[in-house]
């Protein structure tokens, strides 16, 4: 899955490199038109492309598989035979999902940076505010964006873990998690449901643009972190309730 994610920035870079027609500003994903001038934008563009679907997709697969996958393989009861306890298993499984979130965003960012360095010139980066920053600071900002997206995916991982405790069919848990992430994003685009928007776990997913402003606006980072923490707390508590009272039959 990480290889598939890494392919996204490379494909973007190749497509832009090979197309003879320059991209029109304002069309297509953010910064697509700037890639030819500055390779550092490949990573950011790739992250923008991956956030709505590819990253939730892979995270959904990993998080949905956590408990249900073991149950399906029949290994869950052997895991619980060891005197480690169910809480610990739940925590370890969640930690695994979190590690995957980090790895996934880092892969996209690193592959994007690499593809940018290989195919395009590198130079100072223009921020959304029109200010220009040097290469060093732009790498720092890319890392911040990767961190932001990792945090954004933590809530979804917790939801996946929760669903995973309710079923023995891993595909069901994966599909349900991915469908939820899509539903949340669709609801977020309906103006009639404005009151609901701040409570949707995908509401701040594209808010990392605030890290590309001068000076950096930390508001969305904080709000996003708080929201994801809330999802982790609620889903974690529910998963604890379900998993510790569950009869493990397989």
């Amino acid at each position, binding site marked *: 899955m990480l290889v598939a994610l890494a392919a996204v920035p490379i494909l973007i870079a190749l497509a832009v490199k090979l197309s003879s027609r320059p991209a029109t*500003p*304002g069309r297509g994903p*953010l910064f697509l*038109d*700037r890639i030819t*001038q500055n390779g550092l934008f490949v990573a950011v563009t790739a992250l*923008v492309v991956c956030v709505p679907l590819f990253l939730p997709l892979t995270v959904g697969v990993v998080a949905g598989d956590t408990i249900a996958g073991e149950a399906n393989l029949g290994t869950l009861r052997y895991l619980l035979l060891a005197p480690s306890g169910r809480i610990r298993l739940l925590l370890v499984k969640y930690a695994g999902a979190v590690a995957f979130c980090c790895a996934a965003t880092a892969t996209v960012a690193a592959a994007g940076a690499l593809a940018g360095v290989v195919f395009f010139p590198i*130079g*100072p980066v*223009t921020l*959304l*505010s*029109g*200010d*220009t920053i040097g290469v060093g600071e732009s790498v720092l900002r890319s890392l911040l964006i990767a961190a932001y997206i990792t945090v954004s995916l933590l809530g979804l991982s917790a939801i996946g873990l929760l669903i995973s405790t309710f079923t023995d069919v891993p595909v069901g848990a994966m599909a349900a998690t991915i469908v939820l992430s899509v539903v949340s994003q669709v609801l977020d*685009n309906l*103006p009639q449901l404005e009151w609901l928007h701040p409570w949707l776990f995908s509401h701040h997913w*594209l808010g990392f*643009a*605030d890290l590309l*402003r*001068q*000076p950096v*606006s930390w*508001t969305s980072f904080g709000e996003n972190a708080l929201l994801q923490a*809330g999802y982790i*707390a*609620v889903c*974690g*508590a*529910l998963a*604890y*309730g*379900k998993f*510790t*009272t569950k009869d493990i039959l397989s």
Partner: protein
Amino acid sequence: MARARQRWLPALLIPLALALAALIGSVQAGASVSLPPKTANEILAMIARTEVHALSGTVVQTAELGLPEVPTAGPGIVPGATSALELLTGSHTARVYLDGPSKARLQILDRMAERDFVVNGSDAWFYNSADNSATHLSVPVPSNTGQKDSLRSETTHAGMPTPEAMASHFLSAIDSSTEVTVGEASTVAGRSAYRLSLVPRSDGTLVDSVSIEVDSETGWPLGVEVRAKGQPEPAYSLAYTDVNFSAPDAALFNFTPPAGATVTEKPVPIKPLPPPMEGPAGAAPDDSAPAPDAVVPTPQGSSSPMLPHPSPSVTGKGWDAVVGLPAGTAPAELTSNPQLAQALQPVSGGRALTTSLVSVLILDDGRVFAGLVPSDRLQSAATAQ
């Protein structure tokens, strides 16, 4: 069984605790604060005396005018085409940096994009990240620079859509047609603020009341809220969500267009800055020789701010004032914007835009009438001429 129930306890308690925390947060935000009582005149004097030299803050504008929501994302949305109506619907956030009378920066934070206005001395820049274009204007240095270093509305920031600019629009129009009272003190941007309430004495206007929140410490207007008749929620509000009265980083005001941007040089404009978020409150009932740009209640967007305005006619007084523009002077965007065309309703002799706060009548002969009044009053003003 009791043990099993105990294990579900956190699943019950944690959502409850979070809901409680959210509830407390919203209650605290609306809690009233106790401030030493002041009369309306004392507060007005406080605003006039305010000695703020610099600030940085975040402003949120919300408009509930009963217009259809304009989609800002999705297929078929050409950047810029929605600007006219976009700023009249929904909510927008901007960051404001001011330092002295000649330095200002306004950043409208769009989703994945930003529009910047930078004024530094005689240079003014407009930068739009969506199409990577920059516009440069040379503005004459305000003549009163040496006189006073305080941020007053006569400076370059006058065109900036900040709460203080909007407040001064309304305050300058206070006359016998307005009843000024002091409302309940509140908290704005984490600061305690007096609330000044302007209520029109006339029945002819759509405006129910205008309230201005004034910082209790500095006398700086922190928020403006316009309520329309027969609408429970505010029709228009513009307020700081956070504000800091220390000087912002000087580097913020040095703007050089990024490499690769399309740079347009514009001649000296009629007005110092294109007001990007000029909403209906821009239609302040200014009956004493109104500045043309201050009375056209539709935001002209960034594309046509330099139109020369022949003198408009004003019918009525105070809140009931109706502004008429002669034929051929209306911004082209008014008639050519497809989204705006959808919102316009055909009436006899032309088309009308009716919102809960402001009405615009575009006649077939090209004349445009606007005011904070119902549209039938516009029609009677149009036929009277």
